[in-house]
């Protein structure tokens, strides 16, 4: 058995973020020889947390994990429960709680009920815009859902595939029940944070002491000696439709299979010896700039997350994470993250931190004494923050969601799957993909 294992080249996992480490740890438990190649000098990818000298914590966007994910990985004892989480919408200087508060406005309510009435007779939606109008009614779709989608994706809602809108996780009744439980329990019950598994009243948000990277550190413990840092993989060799190896740090290595977490358009360029992934080179990701504004005081937003579909605002969403996770900012201080959609190299992308902070402040003048409270900002730029489901490549996207089209090549993770998965989805889906890998390569399992 040992000889057979040595003769078999390892499965190479490209990227040591949550998805890559989950996949590698699963394979290792099954006795599969595995190597993780990480281009950066540390693990954790998008799950990394930076803590500055003043005690503010910055994640790559706001991260919400659940007690179920923490338990599955085995870090639950080091997690703190999140007591409250809520979303609101700010529209024309009024704030509405999301989703039910919007129904207080008769305009939205009537249009929403009207849409429900005609839903069954309507034609199949052709774009995301159609889906939103059918689901929420024209008023809510045109004033809130579509403007948000457009600033988030950088594309016209009519050019986006219906799949963007996803499938609603819960019925109204179930959502009310979960919200009620959340209130009674004093736990932020997760609503809309996992698509892979049912969300129940026993699944709530938690946050690991020291940051979300703890999940990755725990997984990496199982992978001692298998993770190679500063080892970029720039080519994946395919021969006769099958993965045979990679080039890492300039050296070619054989591989029994390759599990990639790279953005799909990057993966398409890495693969040589097949045209199967060529259509994926067109897939677009929306770059995003996250401006983390530091303030004195706390509770400047009406709730943890505030959607801002107002035309003219540079950001479409504000998140005051310390409202849910007080430990992310020092006492008496807070952090508001503004999400700005952009393109790499455009004026927003190129702006200095100070310029971006100033731009956001101009649109936050409804917060009392906002300038007096402002303590500066720290900006995180992501060239591949969100996948953009354009209709022009929707058929290719759906094909890719089923398989990479190359034997022995698997793509996992938020970037690797080209899908808007959240952390728990990434975990369970990566496991499922690895089960598929083992079924496809029965000889690999010891």
């Amino acid at each position, binding site marked *: 058995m040992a000889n057979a294992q040595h003769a078999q080249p390892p499965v190479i996992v490209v990227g040591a973020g949550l998805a890559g480490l989950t996949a590698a740890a*699963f394979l290792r*438990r*099954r*006795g599969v020889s595995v190597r993780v190649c990480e281009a950066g000098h540390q693990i954790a990818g998008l799950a990394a947390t930076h803590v500055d000298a003043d005690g503010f914590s910055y994640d790559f966007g706001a991260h919400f994990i659940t*007690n*179920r994910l*923490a*338990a*599955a990985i*085995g*870090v*639950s*004892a*080091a*997690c*703190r*429960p999140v007591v409250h989480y809520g979303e609101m919408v700010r529209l024309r200087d009024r704030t509405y709680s999301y989703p039910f508060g919007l129904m207080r406005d008769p305009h939205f309510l009537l249009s929403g009920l009207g849409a429900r009435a005609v839903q069954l007779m309507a034609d199949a939606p052709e774009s995301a815009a159609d889906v939103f109008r059918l689901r929420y009614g024209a008023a809510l779709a045109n004033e809130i859902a579509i403007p948000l989608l457009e600033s988030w994706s950088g594309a016209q809602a009519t050019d986006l595939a219906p799949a963007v809108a996803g499938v609603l996780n819960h019925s109204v009744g179930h959502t009310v029940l979960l919200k009620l439980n959340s209130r009674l*329990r004093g736990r932020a019950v997760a609503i809309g944070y996992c698509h892979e*598994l049912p969300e*129940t*009243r*026993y*699944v709530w948000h938690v946050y690991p*002491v*020291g940051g979300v990277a703890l999940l990755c550190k725990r997984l990496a413990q*199982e992978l001692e000696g298998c993770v190679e840092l500063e080892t970029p993989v720039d080519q994946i060799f395919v021969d006769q439709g099958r993965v045979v190896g990679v080039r890492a740090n300039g050296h070619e290595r054989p591989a029994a299979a390759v599990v990639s977490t790279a953005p799909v358009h990057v993966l398409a360029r890495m693969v040589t010896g097949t045209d199967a992934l060529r259509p994926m080179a067109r897939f677009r990701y929306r770059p995003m700039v996250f401006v983390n504004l530091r303030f004195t005081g706390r509770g400047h937003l009406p709730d943890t997350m505030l959607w801002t579909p107002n035309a003219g605002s540079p950001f479409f969403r504000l998140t005051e994470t310390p409202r849910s996770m007080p430990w992310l900012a020092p006492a008496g201080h807070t952090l508001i993250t503004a999400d700005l959609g952009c393109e790499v190299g455009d004026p927003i992308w190129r702006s200095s931190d100070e310029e971006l902070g100033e731009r956001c402040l101009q649109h936050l003048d409804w917060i009392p004494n906002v300038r007096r409270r402002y303590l500066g900002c720290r900006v995180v730029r992501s060239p591949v923050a969100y996948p953009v489901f354009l209709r022009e490549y929707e058929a290719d996207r759906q094909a890719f969601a089923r398989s990479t089209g190359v034997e022995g090549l698997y793509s996992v993770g938020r970037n690797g799957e080209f899908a808007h998965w959240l952390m728990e989805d990434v975990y369970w889906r990566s496991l499922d993909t690895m*089960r598929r890998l083992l079924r496809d390569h029965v000889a690999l399992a010891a």
Partner: protein
Amino acid sequence: MDVVQDVRAGPPPHPGALDAVDTASVDGARANGTSGLELTHVACCVCGAEDCTPAAVGEDFEYRSSADTFIAMRCRGCGLVYLDPRPTPSELPRIYPQNYHAFDFSPERFGFVYRVRRALEGRRAVQWCRGLGDHARILDVGCGDGFHLRLLRDFGRAGWKLEGVDASVRAVDAARRAGLVVHHGSVEQLDLPPSSYDLILLIATIEHVDDPPGVLRAVRRLLRPGGRVVIVTDNTATLDFKLFGGRHWGGYHFPRHFNLFDRTTLQRLGETAGLEVESVETVVSPVNWVYSVRNTLVDWGAPSWIVERFSLRSPIALAIFTLFDAANQLAGAGALLRIVLRCPADQNVASGAAAALQSPRAVTAQPSNGALPAAL
């Protein structure tokens, strides 16, 4: 009527256990004993698949032995419910604390409930022994403080040779003080005489062990040809599981019940070890009901005077839920399962069959220090 089968009576949960994590750093939590347990991942022990989906997210509501949240998985292959990840063997002293009920189920501590349970369990125990000769040799695996062995000594025949096995020093000491012959260790590792026992009992034991197929294979080696094994364990195909299975079900006993069965998986487990199934039936027990309610109350922070109405020291709750479970029993879904397995008379055939059956292995190699949990 069959009544109390499993016994749990922890102290009221330590309310500070979780709060500590809210405020303290990880190191601080470690210092006050609420740190996380060392955990390891496993595959399904019945079918070997590692294709599972979460069934429950829960905590140690009874003893608060750690600050962990636990996840019970359901195997998509065979339906077994199992704890994954689960504490490593080195953590057993922590998850079975000094005040663990099975180490001391005494009349002093449990009074009226002890007397009722003794009378009813005594009848059950004699039933298991039906057909045994005057000089039968009986082994109780996971005997705890020797409760069932004492029953057999008091209600059984004078010539029976009674022995127990338990991994807990405390339980073994208690049993020996009662004048019982008890071996300290695990049945897989102890050097007990092969092919020499007529009856082996695993009463509320199989759900605690890390490798049930391994334990049953060891048990089969010890049985005489034609000898029998009686296993009693929690049943997952019940109404209480359906109602409380998402978090508070008493049968989870987080994190001490590693594997939980229904008829099908329990039968399959027996067959995997090369044993023949003689009968499988369900048994009435109020315990999982009482503890499901108790865990719910504890989780919701109910005042302790209400919580304490639901424990093994509350005869009223036990009586009510016994009647309740008796109704379920009529529908064939009592709270516990009892399977009787027989060692094939032709050992050669049996060994061949067992050898042909690949034992599903634990995914992570675990150090075997002989510290199998063998509590009641």
